[in-house]
C-alpha cells in the first residue's frame, strides 16, 4: 500500500524537491559575485590579477593589510638596514619590498558609513512612523493627494536633483557633513517609509489605542506603548530597506562628500595599489563592508518572519 495520507494543501515530495532545486540554483547564481569578492579579498595582489583567474590559490591577508595601511616602496639596502619586523603584517609588507607608512583612511570612512547609515535609518523610520500614524488615523484634508505627493519624490531617480542639492548644500554648509548626508538619505527614504508603515499601521486595530487612551494614556503614550510594538514587523521591514539604501548609496556620496563625511562606497573603489587598482584590498574592503548590513538584516529578520502579530482583537 502506498501511503497517501497527506493533506491536500501539503506539497508532494517531488514538487518540494523541485522547489528546493530552483532555490538552490538561484542562491548559487546570486552568491557567485559575492563569493568571488570575498575570495578576492583573500588573494595576494599578484594572484588577484592573474589571468585566467585562479579559483584555487594560496590564501593571503595581503588585501586586508593593504586595506588598512599606506605603504612606501624602499630599496633593498634600506630594508636590510631596518631592525627585524615585529609583526606578521610588517613582515608581509617587507616581503613586497615596502614599509608601512601609516594607517589608511578606511577605518574613518567605515565609521562614517555606520554613523550616516544608522542615523538615516533611525530618522527615516522614526519620522516615517509618526507620519504614517497620522495618515492612518486622523482625518487630514487632501490626505490622498498628500500621500501621492510624498510618493512622487520617488518617481524620478534621486540623482536627477543632484546638482541643485549640491549647490544648496554648499550654500548652507551641509556639504561633506554627517548631518547633511543623514538628512539627504532620510529625505530619500522617507516616502518609502511612510508608505510601507502606513500599510502596517492600518492593519493595527484602533481599539488598542482607544483602550490605552481610556486606561489613562495620552495619544502619544498610546502610540509608543501600544502602536509601535505592534508595528514591529513593518518597522523591521522598513528599517532594512532604508538601511540597505543609505548603506549602499554611491552617487550622492561621491558628489557631496570628500574628506570629513566620505562613506565607504566611494572610498573602496579608489584604493590604488602600484600600477592600478589593488583588487585584493578592494575585495577585503567590500567583504568588511557587507558585514554590518548583513548582521542588521539577520537580526531584524526574526521580526519579519514572525509576521503580523496575531492580535487579541476579535474581528
Amino acid at each position: 500500500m502506498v501511503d497517501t495520507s497527506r493533506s491536500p494543501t501539503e506539497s508532494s515530495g517531488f514538487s518540494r524537491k523541485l522547489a528546493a532545486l530552483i532555490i538552490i540554483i538561484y542562491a548559487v547564481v546570486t552568491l557567485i559575485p559575492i563569493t568571488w569578492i570575498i575570495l578576492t579579498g583573500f588573494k595576494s595582489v599578484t594572484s588577484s590579477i592573474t589571468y585566467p583567474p585562479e579559483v584555487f590559490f594560496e590564501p593571503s591577508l595581503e588585501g586586508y593589510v593593504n586595506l588598512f595601511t599606506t605603504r612606501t616602496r624602499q630599496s633593498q639596502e634600506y630594508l636590510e638596514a631596518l631592525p627585524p619586523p615585529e609583526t606578521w603584517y610588517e613582515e608581509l609588507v617587507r616581503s613586497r619590498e615596502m614599509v608601512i607608512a601609516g594607517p589608511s583612511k578606511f577605518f574613518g570612512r567605515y565609521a562614517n558609513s555606520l554613523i550616516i547609515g544608522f542615523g538615516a535609518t533611525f530618522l527615516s523610520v522614526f519620522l516615517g512612523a509618526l507620519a504614517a500614524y497620522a495618515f492612518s488615523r486622523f482625518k487630514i484634508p487632501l490626505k490622498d493627494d498628500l500621500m501621492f505627493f510624498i510618493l512622487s519624490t520617488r518617481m524620478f531617480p534621486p540623482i536627477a536633483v543632484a546638482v541643485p542639492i549640491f549647490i544648496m548644500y554648499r550654500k548652507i554648509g551641509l556639504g561633506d557633513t554627517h548631518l547633511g548626508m543623514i538628512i539627504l538619505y532620510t529625505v530619500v527614504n522617507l516616502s518609502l517609509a511612510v508608505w510601507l508603515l502606513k500599510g502596517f499601521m492600518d492593519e493595527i486595530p484602533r481599539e488598542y489605542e482607544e483602550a490605552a487612551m481610556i486606561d489613562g494614556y495620552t495619544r502619544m503614550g498610546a502610540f509608543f506603548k501600544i502602536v509601535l510594538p505592534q508595528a514591529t514587523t513593518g518597522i523591521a521591514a522598513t528599517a532594512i530597506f532604508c538601511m540597505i539604501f543609505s548603506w549602499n548609496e554611491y552617487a550622492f556620496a561621491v558628489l557631496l562628500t570628500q574628506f570629513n563625511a566620505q562613506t565607504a562606497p566611494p572610498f573602496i573603489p579608489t584604493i590604488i595599489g602600484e600600477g592600478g587598482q589593488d583588487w585584493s584590498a578592494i575585495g577585503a574592503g567590500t567583504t568588511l563592508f557587507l558585514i554590518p548590513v548583513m548582521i542588521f538584516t539577520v537580526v531584524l529578520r526574526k521580526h519579519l518572519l514572525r509576521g503580523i502579530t496575531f492580535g487579541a482583537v476579535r474581528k
Partner: protein
Amino acid sequence: MASIKLENVYKNFGKTTALKNLNIEIFNGEFFVLLGPTGAGKTTTLRIISGLEQPDRGKIFFDKEIMNDVQPAFRDTSYVFQQFSLYPHYSVYDNLAFPLRSPLRKEKKEVIDKKVTEIAKLLKIDSKLKNKATQLSGGEMQRVSLGRALVRNPNIYLMDEPLSSLDAKLREELRIELKKIQKDLNATILYVTHDHVEATTMADRIGVLKDGVLSQVGTPEEIYDNPNSIYVANRLGSPKINIFDLDKTKIPSKNKATHAGIRPEDISITNKGNYDVYIETVELLGAETVISFKSDNVNGMLLTQTSDTFEEGKKIKIALNNKKMLYFDNNGMRI
C-alpha cells in the same frame, strides 16, 4: 463613581444619524442597560461618554461637571470593548496592570501587584497571569478585558456587549458575577446589549434605543409590563409579544387602536376561551411549553405550564387576559 448625564446629544456620521437628541441620566451606583438592535446608537453613546467620539451637539456631564472638552484619559472611565482589545504584546498580568501604570495613576508596584492578583482571582484567571494575551481562549480574553476595566475605580464602567462572544454557560456565570461585583463596589455601570435576558437580569434601569432616539427608560418591570410602543414591547420577552392586527381578529378595539399586544404567558388554553385556533408547532422548554398557533388570518404564540401533551394541527380554544392587553395606534405607539 459619578452620575452621568447626556443632554440633547446629537451625532451624525456622514449622512447617517447615530444619535438624535439623546437625553439620559445615569445615577451614581446604578446598573443602567442600553438595549437596542445593531445600529441603534448604543456604541456611539458609550464612545461619546468615554470621549473617544465628540458629539456634534449637546453636553456631557459627570456629576455636575461638563466633560465635552476633556480628553478620554482624564474622564476616568473604563471601557470593555465588544471586540476585546487585549494588548497582544503583553502578558495577562501586564494587561491588567496597564491602566494602573499609566502616567495619570502611577501606582506603586505593591499596590499594582495586590490589585491585579485580587481581580485575577475574582475573574478566575489567576492561573493565567503569566500567559501572553494571545495564548488565551475567547472566554479568558474577555475576562481579562473585564478585569482591566475592574482593576481601577473609575467614574463609570462602560461595557459594550462584553459577554456576547462567550458561550452560554460562561455568559450566565459572568452575568451573575458582574451583577454581584457591581453591588459590592456600588459601581455605576452603563452596559450595552441587544440581549434582553442580560438587560432584564442585570439592569436597575433599562433604556431602549431606536435609531438614535431613546424610546423609553424604566426598570425592567416597567419596560416589560408597560412598554410605550410596539418597538419597546418587542425588545423584551421570549418568546416575543404577540401583536395582533385588530382588523383581522375579533379582539374588541379600544379608542383608535389598530393593534393589540399580548404576551404569550397571558394567553391560556381553556375550554371557556372564545377564540378557536389550530396548533402549529409545539416546543417543549422543560417547565414550560411554547405553542405557536394559527387561526384564519393570524399567527401567535402562547406559553403554558401545563404538562398536557399537544398535538400539532389540533384545534384548541384560547382565552386572552384582557387586563394585560396593550393597545397601540397605527404609528405603533401605546394608547
